[in-house]
């Protein structure tokens, strides 16, 4: 029903050249034996070409499902329902059929998975993974040309000695190298959008930085847009243009990265940042923690999802759902879904001062 009709209904004020991905009211739910699990709820955002969007949230916040839904992978499991709209470059990609999906995946949208060892087929050569992708989208490509291109790609993701690596199996490579192979596969057909689902979670901290830097450099080189999903604020900081905080399937705060790391309006977003130790915080300062745990995803209580854990919650928070709206007129791009937004910057400053003032 959302097919071609809505295509014409796209408002004319949106420049098609600028917005690559347009997500409106996207929800994804799974029917499980213990009830309906709504993993993503009414998520809307735009992603411009060449920009990076960081999605942060704790486990179970729906960030990975959001990434997979954008890839059209959620529909693969029979018990999932996806509603809302995903427009990729003007094409409705909400519930893609087989043909559309196989045409788009790899060539226009590509994904990097969390665990490179589990995403690669253990009995296939590293090179075969890459050539397979190349030949999937260009049937006329000869084996030799594909091999040449694949070695070029492995070289591009800075895998030393790509000739030799081409003929090795995934288990013969280190974790970082494997993730580079994953990146090479994703890059094979120069996609316009890269969805990186916790690309560095399975890696060492030292390797993490290399892989993230590589991703950033390649995105910049190719003018590729990226959705960087992570539970680690440090991964997203400095590598994204915009940050989105998810909690229990909803977007709680959305802001340009430069803005977000200075000032948070949503108590949850503030709590996330305050729980990280800062270099300039006083010694022995106690880290803030958010009490409680995320709500049961099958429990659809009314109001704000964060209300049960929120210190500022009042009656209205448990009755009405706050909308994602700009908090101050000064920064219209900085939105938070909260009735009683706090000013993270101000709170932190007072906390710091009181701690410094204490003997």
């Amino acid at each position, binding site marked *: 029903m959302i097919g071609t009709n809505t295509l014409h209904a796209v408002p004319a004020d949106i420049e098609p050249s600028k917005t690559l991905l347009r997500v409106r009211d996207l929800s994804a739910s799974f029917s499980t034996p213990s009830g309906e699990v709504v993993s993503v709820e009414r998520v809307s955002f735009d992603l411009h070409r060449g920009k990076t969007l960081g999605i942060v949230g704790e486990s179970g916040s729906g960030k990975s499902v959001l990434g997979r839904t954008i*890839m*059209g*992978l959620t529909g*693969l499991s029979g018990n999932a329902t996806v509603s809302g709209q995903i427009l990729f470059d003007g094409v409705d990609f909400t519930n893609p059929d*087989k*043909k559309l*999906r*196989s045409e788009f*995946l*790899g060539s226009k949208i590509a*994904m990097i*998975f969390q*665990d490179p*060892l*589990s*995403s*690669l*087929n*253990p*009995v*296939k050569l590293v090179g075969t993974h890459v050539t397979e992708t190349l030949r*999937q989208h260009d049937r006329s490509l000869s084996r030799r040309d594909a091999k040449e291109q694949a070695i070029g790609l492995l070289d591009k993701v800075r895998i030393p000695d790509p000739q030799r690596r081409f003929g090795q*199996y995934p*288990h013969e490579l280190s974790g970082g190298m494997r993730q580079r192979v994953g990146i090479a596969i994703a890059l094979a057909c120069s996609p316009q959008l890269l969805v990186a689902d916790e690309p560095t979670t399975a890696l060492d901290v030292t390797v993490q930085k290399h892989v993230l830097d590589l991703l950033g450099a390649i995105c910049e080189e190719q003018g590729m847009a990226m959705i960087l999903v992570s539970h680690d604020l440090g991964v997203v900081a400095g590598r994204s243009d915009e940050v989105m905080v998810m909690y229990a399937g909803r977007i709680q705060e959305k802001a340009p990265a430069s803005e977000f790391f200075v000032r948070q309006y949503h108590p949850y977003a503030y709590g996330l940042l305050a729980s990280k130790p800062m270099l300039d915080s006083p010694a022995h300062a106690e880290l803030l923690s958010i009490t409680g745990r995320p709500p049961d995803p099958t429990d659809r209580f009314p109001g704000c999802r964060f209300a049960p854990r929120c210190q500022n919650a009042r009656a209205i928070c448990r009755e009405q759902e706050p909308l994602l709206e700009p908090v101050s007129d000064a920064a219209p791009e900085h939105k938070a879904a909260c009735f009683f937004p706090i000013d993270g910057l101000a709170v932190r400053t007072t906390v710091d001062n009181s701690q410094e003032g204490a003997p």
Partner: protein
Amino acid sequence: MPQHETRRPLAAPKTTPIPVSFEKPRKNFHVDLLLWFCILWLGAIVLAAIFAPLLPLAEAQDASKTLMEPTNQPPFTVPGHPLGTNGLGLDIFARLIYGARISLTVGVAAVAIGMAVGAMLGTSAGYLRGAWEAVIGVLTNTLLAVPALILLIALSTVLRPSVVSLTFSLALVASPGLIRLARANTLAFTQREFITVARALGAKPGRVILRELLPNVLLSMMSLSFVYISVLIVAEASLGFLGVGIRQPTPSWGNMIAEGLGGKMEQYPHLVFIPATVLFLTVFSFNLLGERMRKRWDKREVSL
């Protein structure tokens, strides 16, 4: 404070340099003698079984040709019969080799059939799920519920004992375990992203099963299959011993051991010990080989 004195030894005194060898570290020359013995033994048995008709062996089956031969001769006593003769004067060495033909053919063929059936049914059940998986599950559990030997004896009363019928009966015994293994592995592999991606790119179930799942699943089934070969060789020998397997005069290791029944073993222990030793060594070799293969191939999964 004599602190500087305690520190003195740290200030690089005269030390003899640690001899550092820049040669490549020697490869581990520890040869796995046991493994090589097993490989040699199996190789010899297999070759002998294949080329049995070409070998200069004494009579193994037709007792009418051995009327003049001495009977029940222990090994190394009669020229021309290296391992002695049985009650009918048939050459034990020749009978062992012809018995190997049957034991190995039956064991290997049954496992091959079991592998094919197990891989196809197990992988499809694990990947397609739903009603198909339920059907396969009931089938597998039913077969597992019946004790193997009783199932085989029951089958042998219905089917005329021949190499073919025995092979299929044994394949039926081997299948459930292999189906289960294939299904369990498929369930694990299906969770992994390369399967998700193949599906997302429009690969049909047939292609996913054949191209993505089977190579992975077969690898893990391979090492189990060697263990199964040895189990089935023993099962075949048990049937032969019980008289419901391959019938005399065709020799099989099982019915050769059964020749010692009825008090003959006390008098002529070689009738039983020789085939039993051969059976033991063969089963041991298959088991050891399977074990070593598992160790070697499990490295692929080591960092999972």
